[in-house]
């Protein structure tokens, strides 16, 4: 549906030119939910705005459906108001001098379409705002404004829907609710959706595919499951899900690999070439070996370590622990998650285990 080829965008500032988009190429399937995920400044919003036509890239090509909307080689640039794209802005951009109904009807009016009233009310129904069409837009709560923005974006039945961090201004409970509703609406309309966020929970729970971005580049593009369980870079591993990243020297041992790290010697069920390697272990995959506590039992082949608890943070359902290995590099700190009501204070010595299948090796950079 959307094809991007070799997109480059530079920003000039007083300190020189920065590359906001660094030679990006991707294909996005029709009717899928595609998320751009990354930290601030990675270029995800810039990419979205290039798709919208609000920013003009310097080089490359963008095709939406059958139409080329941008091509530096052929000098094509279709303006924003002719791309037939729906967009929800981070600030919602609801016009304060119009009512909800007028806001939502606006696209239909300016495009000279028919049956405006019915379609406006239909869009408002879909987002759960029936009956509010005569209310002045500025008198709504944040959540309601966001739904108005959504209704306005979809009322014209666009081919593509762009969402720029639409949930970041909402509180946590509302965010959870809206995530589910957004997904429901997208499925109902079956529209190609590009979603920008820095929140990995949104990315994982809503998307068909996720593109992790950093410094204007795609670090990794994969499904949420692959991205979580099999990230291919330390950056993705850390950004999505939280991980303990360790460096070490790998030695092949049949089908397994042994790695010497600051933690100690680790056995991984994955195989790789010998030499320097980076590996990661998910926080929740570290097992506390303590039968008394109702925690895990040591199993055959498990990596076992004795550690001292250095820090503990309460987080409601779980607590996050910082562990320092008694043998091995004192500087290495292992982060893990255990049930919040478990007994264990800083200074205590505990025994932990990591199964070899949870020691993931990252592809050499």
């Amino acid at each position, binding site marked *: 549906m959307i094809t991007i080829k070799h997109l480059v965008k530079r920003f000039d500032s007083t300190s020189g030119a920065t590359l906001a988009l660094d030679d990006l190429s991707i294909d996005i399937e029709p009717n899928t939910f595609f998320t751009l995920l990354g930290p601030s400044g990675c270029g995800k919003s810039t990419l979205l705005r290039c798709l919208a036509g609000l920013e003009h890239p310097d080089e490359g090509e963008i095709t939406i459906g059958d139409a080329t909307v941008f091509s530096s080689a052929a000098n094509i640039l279709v303006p924003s108001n002719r791309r037939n794209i729906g967009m929800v*802005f981070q*600030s919602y*951009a609801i*016009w304060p001098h119009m009512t909800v109904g007028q806001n939502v009807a606006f*696209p239909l009016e*300016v495009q000279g379409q028919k049956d405006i009233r019915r379609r406006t009310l239909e869009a408002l129904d879909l987002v759960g705002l029936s009956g509010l069409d005569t209310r002045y837009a500025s008198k709504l709560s944040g959540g309601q404004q966001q739904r108005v923005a959504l209704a306005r974006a979809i009322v014209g039945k666009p081919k593509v829907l762009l969402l720029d961090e639409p949930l970041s201004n909402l509180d946590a409970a509302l965010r959870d609710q809206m995530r589910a509703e957004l997904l429901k609406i997208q499925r109902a309309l079956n529209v190609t959706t590009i979603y920008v966020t820095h929140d990995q929970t949104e990315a994982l729970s809503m998307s068909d595919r996720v593109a992790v971005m950093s410094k204007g580049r795609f670090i990794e593009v994969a499904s949420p499951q692959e991205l979580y369980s099999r990230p291919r870079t330390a950056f993705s591993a850390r950004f999505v899900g939280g991980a303990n990243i360790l460096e070490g020297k790998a030695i092949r041992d049949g089908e397994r690999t042994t790695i010497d790290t600051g933690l100690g010697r680790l056995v991984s069920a994955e195989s790789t070439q010998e030499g320097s390697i980076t590996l990661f272990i998910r926080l929740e995959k570290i097992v506390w070996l303590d039968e008394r506590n109702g925690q895990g039992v040591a199993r055959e082949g498990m990596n076992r370590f004795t550690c001292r608890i250095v820090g503990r943070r309460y987080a409601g359902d779980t607590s996050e622990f910082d562990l320092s290995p008694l043998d091995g590099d004192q500087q290495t700190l292992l982060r893990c998650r255990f049930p919040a009501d478990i007994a264990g204070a800083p200074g205590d010595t505990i025994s932990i285990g990591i199964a070899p299948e949870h020691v993931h090796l990252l592809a050499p950079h």
Partner: protein
Amino acid sequence: MSAPGIETTIASKVPASSPRRRHFPALARNLALAALILVVGYLIIPPIGALLLGSATDTPPGVAPHFTSSSLVYAYTQRDHYASMLLSVEFAACTATLVLLVGGALAWIVARTDSPLGRMADIFTLVPILVPAILFATGWLLLLGPRGGMLNLWAMQIFGLKSAPLNLYSFWGMVWVGALQEIPLAFLWFWPAFKSMNSDLEDAALMSGASAFTVIRRITIPLLRPAVVSGWIMFFIYGLGALAVPLMIGIPAGYVMYSTEIYLAVQRIPSDLNLASAYSLALLAASLIGVYVYHRATRDLSRFTTVTGKAFNPRIQRLGRWRPVATAFGILMLFLVALLPMLVLLWNAFIPFSQLPSIAAFKLMSLKNFRAALEYGEAIQALINSVVLGIAAGVVTTVLGCTIAWCTLRLKGPKFLLATLDQMATLPVAMPGLIVGVSVLWFYLLLPLPIYGSSWILLIAYITLHLPYAVRICGSGLAQLHHELEEAAAMCGAHWFTVFRRIVLALLAPSLLTSVIYVGLRSFREYSASILLASPGNQVFSVMVLDMWDGGNLNILCAYVTMVTAVLGVLVALLSWAARRFGVKVA
């Protein structure tokens, strides 16, 4: 020049390259920008050029120019002229200092203490608009004049004195009136700065153990340094170029100030415009230097930023037993600055000559002055001219200013063109009304168009003088218009013009209205340029007032002014009501 405005900063700056700008086809855009620069340039450059020409020649406009340095030599080698320059500098420095101290103190009391003077801000916004400089000076003449001044008569009566104890016709009399007149403006200068101070900065000092006094000395005052420095410069420049006080109080007192010299050079018979131009150069240079220093002082404003976009409510200082003192001070200032002059003008409108209220005086009250005012020469025509010119100037300047503001804030274009446009549009801030008067006068005497001697020359002068304010007001309105509001409309498929019409204009309407009213009112009460540019048949309100003063018809003047102020007050009230009704839709 136009007095320091209600705004805290007058100069606008082109922001660094922002990605949120609208793209247009390059050729059309550059042509449009060039045209805009030409229009603004036409308003400013030729008159200044004429001024330079005038100083470098000794031939009047219209005659083939004979280049010589004699005008400049004469202007700057007369000892008297340096005396008048020095006098102007003394006057300006004294008034600026006094004004800042009192205005600052008042602003502090209203914004940061628990005194009940909260409404003062609103009153002080209106006063300088409704009581122009000439009226203010007249009012105080009627109060402290040595012969008929009411306060003097009253003191003589109470204390049994033979002669008036206070004489307004003195250097300190001039400073008194000059300073009082500007106190509302100084108040409005400091008030926003105080209101938006971040008390976290002061609280942090308190937590570190500092006493309240130390906090003020080492945190609050240093943070206010840019506002104080830039304020002092603005009021100093204004004092240099002021004309009402020097004319109406200075000359009778025997003091000739620099601005008076310029005025006299133009008005004497035969008019010596070359000399006036030569004098003007010094004033222009002083103003430009002042504005430059102002820019420098406010450039590292970020170091002193007390406002970061979030709304802060500063901590309120409890006054305790100082409360009645502070309140009394505020009320006293209100009296001196507004109520007293206005009341005395009103009183004198009804009596044939200045006297204290008494039974005898009440018997003499009549509407004679009003009738005389209606029949006075071109008084009514002048009023009509002023109203028409005010509205015209307001509308034209706002259209121009809004376009310029939109280009500098929203248009993606060559930075050089945009910066030039921005700088030129704010240049008139450094040009006192007197300078604009002399330069425009010269230029249109040169130009073979029938502009001199018509109302057009006044309109051009008003537009030139007030363009920076329109740019600033529309710019503020635009800056608050989040760019995503326009982008969302584009994403909905709207053509650029539809976006402009249905989103930008609709949301900008309150700012546009404010600009029209503000520029209109300032044009209405403008006098420094008007004196030089008005002519028989094209009189304006302020010149008429000066005419009446000149002829000694003070009571008729009061009646005239009372009528006009009443009409003006009603108009402003109507417009405010209309604006509020209109503004409700914008929420």
